[in-house]
Structure formats: C-alpha cells, structure tokens
C-alpha cells in the first residue's frame, strides 16, 4: 500500500534505498520527521547518512523506495522540493573569491529573489548572524566560524521550511559551535525543521530526536533521554558507542 503524506511531516522516508553496485549504502530507510523538529541524524562514517541526505535533497536518485519533503514526493517533484529546502554542508559551498555580500546576492539570485528582496534579506541575515561588518570582505579572508555562519545564512536566504545541515560544525572551535547551535535553536523556534548530522555527541544532546544509523539502517530512534534510558547509557557518547558497537 502506498503511504499517504500527512500534513505536519517535514520529511518522510518509506523503504528508501540506495545501492552502489553490490554495496547497499542506505537499506530500506523509514523515517518521519515532524515539522519544526530539530532532528539529529547520527551514525558512524560510512553508515549511509550522507547518502540518505543527498537523496532527500535531490542530489542523488534512490534505487528504491520513496521520500516526501514538505509533503512532496522527491521522485516527481524534485524542482519544487529544492525550493523548499536549505542545504549546508561541511564544505560550506561559498565562493572564497567573492565578497560576503556578493555570495548572498548570488545565491539569492539563483533562488529567484529580485534585487530589492535580496538587499533586504541580506541586511537582515547579516545583522542576525553578526556579520554586518563583513559585507565587503572577501569571503576567503573570513575565520572559519564566520564562514560557517555565512553558509547558514546562504541556506536560509529563501526562507526554506526545511533545513538540511550535513556536519555543519566540522573543524570549528567549541565557542563557535555553541554560537552556531544558538542560531539553530532560533531558526527552529520560528518553525523551520532542522535535519542535522553531526559527529559531536554534545550536539546530539541539543536535538529534539535523534536516529543512529548503522550499515545503512536505523538502529535507534527517539529523544536523547529516552534512548539513553533504553540502552542504559550515561551520555550520548556512551549511547552512540553502544548502538554502533553492537
């Protein structure tokens, strides 16, 4: 039976699979993410997190199964899905040779914002990300923490209802990471769904719910507190090792 999309679900995956030759990177993934949730998508390297995210963002076609993003099936509404998601990866996707303002202007432009809208939104985001002074700075000259916030700004430009963050805090110091998560809370408080992968277990603690992926399948799913209780784990680090290790 074909599952129906329910309103209120930001992301839904049903038997979503991806094979590369003989290797199954994502094995029949089932997942429901509520709108407005901060959902932590955890797993060891090679567990299939990035493959799953790439399918949900339309960067990779599934081998089998289906997924809905903001209620739209990704197989048939790829273009519409892309307008509804913001995406930020560890690599940030910024042009180092463009100025901060030019990066925002460019990305705003390709999402179809007109010049006036770009200008307004750009000012607002720079203010909020505490980057107003950096408007005319070459992006390549920014410290990593600033770049990271700018990359988040790029992902938020077109006010997407769902934000995919693929290891957004890699290589950034703890203070910058903390500040970044404050921003994520703000964004989520406004109703944006945040779908985030991370290797930092303290960050996993900040999520409303987490899933832990092992070898292409979800092995654990729930709130950090309930999962810790279920597995008798001291903290998220302990939980992760217990789930992944078994």
């Amino acid at each position, binding site marked *: 039976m074909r599952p129906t999309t329910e309103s209120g679900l930001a992301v839904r995956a049903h038997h979503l699979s991806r094979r590369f030759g003989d290797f199954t990177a994502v094995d029949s993934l089932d997942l429901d993410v509520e709108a407005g949730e901060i959902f932590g998508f955890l797993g060891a390297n090679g567990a299939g997190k990035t493959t799953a995210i790439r399918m949900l963002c339309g960067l990779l076609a599934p081998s089998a199964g289906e997924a809905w993003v903001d209620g739209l099936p990704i197989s048939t509404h790829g273009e519409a899905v892309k307008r509804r998601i913001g*995406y930020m*990866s560890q690599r940030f996707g910024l*042009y180092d040779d463009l100025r901060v303002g030019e990066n925002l202007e460019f990305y705003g432009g*390709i999402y179809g914002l007109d010049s006036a809208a770009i200008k307004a939104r750009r000012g607002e985001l720079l203010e909020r990300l505490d980057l107003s002074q950096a408007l005319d700075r070459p992006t390549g000259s920014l410290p990593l923490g600033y770049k990271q916030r700018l990359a988040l700004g790029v992902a938020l430009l077109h006010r997407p209802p769902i934000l995919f963050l693929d290891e957004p805090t890699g290589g950034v110091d703890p203070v910058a990471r903390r500040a970044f998560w404050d921003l994520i809370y703000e964004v989520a408080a406004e109703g944006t769904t945040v779908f985030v992968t991370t290797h930092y277990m303290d960050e996993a603690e900040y999520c409303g719910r987490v899933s832990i992926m092992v070898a292409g399948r979800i092995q654990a799913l729930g709130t950090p507190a309930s999962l810790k209780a279920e597995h008798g784990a001291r903290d998220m680090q302990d939980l992760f090792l217990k789930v992944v290790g078994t």
Partner: protein
Amino acid sequence: MGPLARLVQKEFRQIFRDPLMVRLIFLMPIIQLFVLGHAVSLDLKGVRVSVLDPVPGPLSRRLSQAVWETETFTPGPPVATPSQAEDLLVQGRTDLVLHFPVDLERRMRQGNGVLGINLDGRNSAQAGQALAQVQAVLNLEAARLASGWKGQAPRPGGVTLQPLYLYNPELVSRYQMVPAITILLITIISAMLTGMSVVREKELGTLEQLLVSPLTSRQLVLGKTIPLAILSFGELAVATLAAILVFRLPLEGSVLLLSGAVFLYLLVTLGGGLLASTVSSTQQQAIFTVWFFLVFSILLSGFFFPVANMPQALRWLTWMNPMRFIIEIVRGIYLKGSGPADLALPLGMLAAHGVGVFSLALWRFRKRVA
C-alpha cells in the same frame, strides 16, 4: 536579474577578480601576436640570388643583372649543375637559384619564356615574397627587352617563373598561420576554462550547493558557457584587429560570416570543455583531458601540415576534427574572401559537430550531476 543572469554575473566577477586569469585571457594573446608580429616582418634585404646558366648569353646576363641591381637581391655564388644548386640552398650559402633554359631567347620571342627557380620553402612568407619580387623585376626587364626587338609588339610578362621549393612546397605561409592561431587562442580559452571552472566548483563543493538549488541543468550549463563565449568573441575581436593592423592581413571576407563560424566552433569547444568536466574530478584531470584532444585536433587540422598531404587514413580522420573545418573557414574568409556558398561544406560539417558535441555535453551534464 534572473537566475541565469546572476550566474553570468558571478562568473565574470570571479574571472576579473583573479589577476592571473585576466593576464592569461587578455595579455597572453596580445603577447603571442606581438611576438609573431616580429617574426612575420616581411622586409626582404640582401637575398642571395645564384644563377644556373648552361649557355651564358647577353639575354640571361641582362636578366640576372636586373635582379641583382635591386635593393632586395645580391649576387650569390655561381652554380654549375642542378644538384649543386640544391646543395648550396641546403647549406644556406644562397637563397634562391635562377635556372635559365638553353633556348630562352627563342621562347621569349614566342612570349612564353619559362625560368626555373629553386627556393627554400621553410620560410614560406619570405620565399613567397622573394618569388613575387623576382617575377616583377623579370617582367619589367622582359618588357623592356621585347620593346627593343624588331618586328615584335611590346609584350609584357614574357617570362614565367616555375618555382621548385626544396621544403614546404605548399608554402603554408604565416598569412595562413595568423588566422589559424586566432582559432587556437579561442579554443584554449573556451575549452580549457569551461572545463576548469566547472571542475573547480566540484573541488570546492560549490557545485553541490548549486545542484540543491532550483537551478536547472540547462541554466547551469548556459551560465558556465555564456561568459566564456563572450570572452572568446572578445579574443576574436582583438586577434582580428591585430591581424589587420599589425600583420597587415587583408580580411577579404565578411566579419559576420567569421563570427557566425566561430559561434558554431564555440559550441564544439564549450561543449568539449563541459564533457571534460563530467569525466574529471580535479582541475588537473580536466586540463589533461582537454589537452589530449587539443593536440590531436591541432595535428589533424591542417594547422601545420596541409590535410591534402596526409595519408588517406589520416585524411578520413580529419573529418571527425571540427578544428579542421574552422581553420579551413577562417583561412578562406581571410585570404580568399570566401562566402557562405564557397564554405558550405565546412560550415555544414562544423554545424553538425557543434550541435552534436554541445547536445552530448548537455545530456551528459544532466545525467552526471542532476
């Protein structure tokens, strides 16, 4: 400004912000043309002319004297046999050898005096120029002689030169090289830079950021290729002006036709650059891929070696080489003033290549990245 215009704006910002890129694109061709401009200087002076005259007589003496008296030519060492003439040319001890036939006077009286002339064709422009000047001097002198002959109407042009080149018999001149070099510059700019700029975005991770955006693969492809097409036309304009002003090349044909042909050719090179980017994950791979095809294209294009002189198998292979057709076209337009009707075949072939390669690139690009 629509998404496509933003992409184009961003490409131009990136190109003009990179000083090395600006130098590569704008200074490189100017320097190349300037260096060539010096090499191509056609002032002939002190060209040594030897004479092979089995039966010396007043007529041959007067003709050779006339040649030697000009500023361009000086007497070279005397030559006794045809094989000695060749030796002297090979050793560089003389520049050209005039062969007087035994029955020159009789032939000239009939109005068809034929002289053999041996030249070294390696410096084709110089050889061509020298040949033309010798011919001019001989014509003048022959006309003077003829007017002095009794019962004979003055008949100019009673002497024809039959050139025998030691090397480069096709006399591929720098006149032919300059238009071809223009094409080479455009090829490098468009194919290399397209391939590199797409792959650089792969390396940086920005391509991924573009792919999660609502940009279509067609917009992406156009956004990448339009800026380089514009720069290539800029390059064409600079090179064409230089060809006319610096090299004094007569542009006989239509600039419009030239631009149209270059547009068709750009479909090939831009499409080729995109294709290279779909099989490469680093800029080095992209450069190497483009370079690999570039070398074959140049060698099989008639750029250095005329296609007509190639072995049959290679000649067939040149049909798969779009550079062969664009070079044929630009040389035709520059040197012969060929029009669309004269160039129908190469234009048709170029259009087929252009549409084919660009469509393939678009399809591959869509398949690989979207």
